[in-house]
């Protein structure tokens, strides 16, 4: 029982609280424009960092394994992501920033195992492309949808990714990946109780690097890669169906319902794929 309390406290409540506090602080200290870009990403990175710090000693602060880099990559993405969201930046410049961050992340997250399949020379560019596309396609959504709405979907997707990792790969990995969901929960709470000035702009790169990164880490852990995991982080991209056409004209509550259903369907497909793969090795 004590361990459950510890887990809920240090693994969920504390990161979420740090996320909320950081978002509030950033709104107080930064200008409106800067805060609109940095608050969500900064809150996310701070929350993930604190949550990681509270993990047992096997989550080393000096990276010795590929997944030990995730909190530092989240921090880097929390800087480059908001920069790329600045007004006046050309699209190519924005994408170059994404590409650089994605490449560095891929370089650090792809392990050097001799038995890695596909080999590292293939995994690095593939992961770079995956992280880049995820961030590039997600960022415009952050501006088009209300912060609370998009934060909710990001939280659901990251939580599902962690659950799939727990169920099919490793509880150890899931314990760390779950902190990401807790950090996004804090962003969601802050967005839900704000006066409407909160945005999730600048968050896409941090989300891509961490949630996408953890999906990749879980994917390549087994001898036969679990590619179904890579579907979970991209679930929020199904919200593109909701920003135009008849769905975009729905009332707020109905729109939220449709958005959630679309994301859940996507996640169910990912979970089904994982289950099928595990039953038929």
């Amino acid at each position, binding site marked *: 029982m004590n*361990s*459950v309390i*510890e*887990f809920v406290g*240090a*693994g969920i409540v504390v990161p979420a609280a740090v996320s909320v506090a950081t978002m509030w602080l950033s709104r107080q200290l930064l200008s409106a424009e800067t805060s609109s870009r940095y608050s969500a990403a900064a809150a996310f990175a701070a929350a993930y960092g604190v949550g990681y710090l*509270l*993990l*047992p*000693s096997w989550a080393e602060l000096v990276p010795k*394994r590929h997944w030990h880099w995730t909190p530092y990559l989240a921090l880097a993405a929390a800087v480059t992501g908001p920069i790329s969201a600045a007004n006046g930046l050309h699209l190519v410049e924005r994408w170059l920033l994404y590409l650089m961050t994605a490449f560095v992340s891929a370089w650090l997250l792809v*392990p*050097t*195992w*001799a*038995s890695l399949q596909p080999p590292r020379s293939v995994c690095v560019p593939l992961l770079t492309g995956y992280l880049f596309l995820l961030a590039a396609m997600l960022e415009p959504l952050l501006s088009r949808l209300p912060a609370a709405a998009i934060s909710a979907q990001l939280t659901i997707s990251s939580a599902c990714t*962690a*659950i799939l990792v*727990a*169920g*099919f*790969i*490793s*509880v*150890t*990995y*899931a*314990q760390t990946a*779950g902190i990401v969901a807790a950090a996004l929960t804090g962003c969601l709470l802050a967005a839900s109780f704000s006066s409407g000035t909160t945005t999730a702009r600048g968050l896409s790169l941090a989300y891509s690097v961490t949630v996408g990164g953890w999906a990749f880490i879980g994917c390549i*852990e*087994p*001898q*036969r890669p*679990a590619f179904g995991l890579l579907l979970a982080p991209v679930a929020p991209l199904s919200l593109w169906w909701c920003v135009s056409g008849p769905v975009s004209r729905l009332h707020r509550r109905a729109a939220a319902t449709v958005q959630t259903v679309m994301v859940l369907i996507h996640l169910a497909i990912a979970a089904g794929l994982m289950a099928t*793969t*595990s039953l038929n*090795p």
Partner: protein
Amino acid sequence: MRFSLGWMIVGSLLVSACSNQAGSAPATSSKPATGSSGGAGGGGPIGSTPTGAASPLESSDVDASPVPIELGVAKLTPENTKIEFVGTHTGNKPDPRTGGFAKFSGAAEVDSDGKTLKSVSVEIETGSLWTQMQPLTAHLNAPDFFDTREYPAAKFESTQIAADGDAGQVTITGNLTLLAATKEVSFPANVSISGEGLTLKAKFSIDRAEFGMDKLVERVEKTVSLTVVIGEKTQPQQGPGGLGSARGGPGSAPGAATGDGKK
């Protein structure tokens, strides 16, 4: 502030095939105290089992075929040797799960008069582990237990083999390397050397947490029972599978323990 545990509730709901009724397992930890000088008795006399764990076999039930000795050395392979483990859950329902390794290589050296065992060494390809259930096999390969991606090999090298008094009874002391830790273990064994060859039967327990395999200790016992029989072929009850399929499958040719998979 660092804390232990996490995701037990969520993980246990989903890892039902792996760590709930489907069992869990091995982990190794030397029950004979690490660093102890021989005679600590391993898990006790041959045939002893960890508390609450059902043994898959007793040494007296095994009919071992002697492994030929050539130039004083008996080569150990999955064709003539088996290495198995049994892990259990904590609580009132231990649900013991049996597993083993399908790829390993080693050697047992006898002295010049061909009557006493001089040394035993074996290197195991951890990714070749098998259990009765594919999801369990996949989970044991994961960082929660053997972390076979990072630690593709486990080793045992004897440092001392001392007669126990009774004919054929010895205490083997040596260094067991698992994950990133090397600990000294001691265990009793029944050795028989004849003109036909060598047989050895040993059963003992270790504490997996001593080797750094300390995850999920609230659900899976730290004590793991190991059985080694030289003279009996490895026969996996189910091939390695799930998402963590071994590279060569069970019963593959030996000698790959130091090759494929090394970083």
